[in-house]
């Protein structure tokens, strides 16, 4: 039986493998904890590959001033390479670089960052930069990257970013957030005025499972507030 949690894992595995989700249909009946372990091992395998070369490239950014390194990275490093180099840099150096490159380039890099390094880097980035990059990621439909980011960002920062995201971006990101409790916490942040639009988008996208997952983790107050918009789903 394929549960919602399993489907989220398969979506994430397909993203890592850059293959269609249908190619992973054979995993539909596997326990979700097994799929998570498989994803962890796959993440290690893919992001630890060619580490020596990446560390060498990271070293080159140290021998020039930060602004120059950012310019070199922007001009000379395609986003996928810049992301992998950022993944092996010391956190402060990665933050310095990320803060100096243009926002569109940062948004190019973000979906390709090593998910194991995302937390330490995101926590040190300027709040407005996160809002600007989040807006672009939403417009580019980079929902898995956004889900990874909202999994670790402070709720205050997520609240700042909600206003620049479309209803569809919010719903589709919510569908791939790994932790249902986090999903519930974010749903509770949505301003009342946006709830009817979000509920309508959930209906249009047939994304009721998003509300099902969050339901058990909503606070009493949050449940009461959301029940009007999502009433039929929350029960």
């Amino acid at each position, binding site marked *: 039986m394929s549960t919602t949690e399993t489907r989220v894992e398969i979506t994430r595995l397909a993203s890592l493998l850059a293959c269609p989700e249908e190619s992973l249909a054979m995993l539909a009946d596997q326990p979700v904890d*097994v799929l998570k372990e498989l994803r962890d091992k796959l993440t290690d*395998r893919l992001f630890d590959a*060619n580490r020596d070369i990446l560390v060498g*490239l990271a*070293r*080159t950014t140290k021998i020039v001033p930060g602004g120059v390194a950012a310019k*070199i990275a922007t001009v*000379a490093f*395609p986003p996928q390479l810049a992301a992998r180099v950022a993944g092996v840099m010391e956190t402060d150096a990665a933050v310095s670089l990320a803060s100096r490159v243009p926002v569109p380039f940062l948004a190019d890099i973000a979906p390709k960052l090593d998910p194991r390094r995302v937390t330490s880097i995101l926590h040190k980035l300027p709040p407005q930069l996160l809002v600007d990059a989040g807006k672009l990621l939403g417009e580019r439909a980079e929902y898995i990257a956004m889900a990874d980011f909202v999994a670790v960002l402070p709720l205050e920062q997520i609240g700042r970013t909600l206003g620049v995201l479309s209803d569809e971006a919010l719903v589709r990101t919510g569908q791939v957030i790994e932790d249902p409790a986090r999903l519930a916490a974010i749903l509770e942040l949505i301003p009342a005025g946006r709830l009817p639009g979000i509920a309508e988008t959930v209906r249009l996208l047939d994304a009721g499972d998003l509300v099902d997952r969050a339901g058990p983790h909503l606070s009493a107050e949050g449940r009461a507030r959301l029940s009007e918009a999502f009433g039929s789903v929350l029960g």
Partner: protein
Amino acid sequence: MSAAASLAHQLGAEPPTGLSLSEADTGQLAALIKEARRAQGAELEASLRKALEIVPRPLRGTVRKVVGL
């Protein structure tokens, strides 16, 4: 090589103990990982080549040395 051994090889680790797939499905999963690793390696190589083309020629040797190429 059995499909299970191929999957372990591609993962670089033993697959999760609870993973229960047929021989054919295990082989298909191993093939998907192999292709992802191949594409990733090719992407890195192309990226490095592109990056080195942009570095001024007199500095390329230094950069190659620092990078370890």
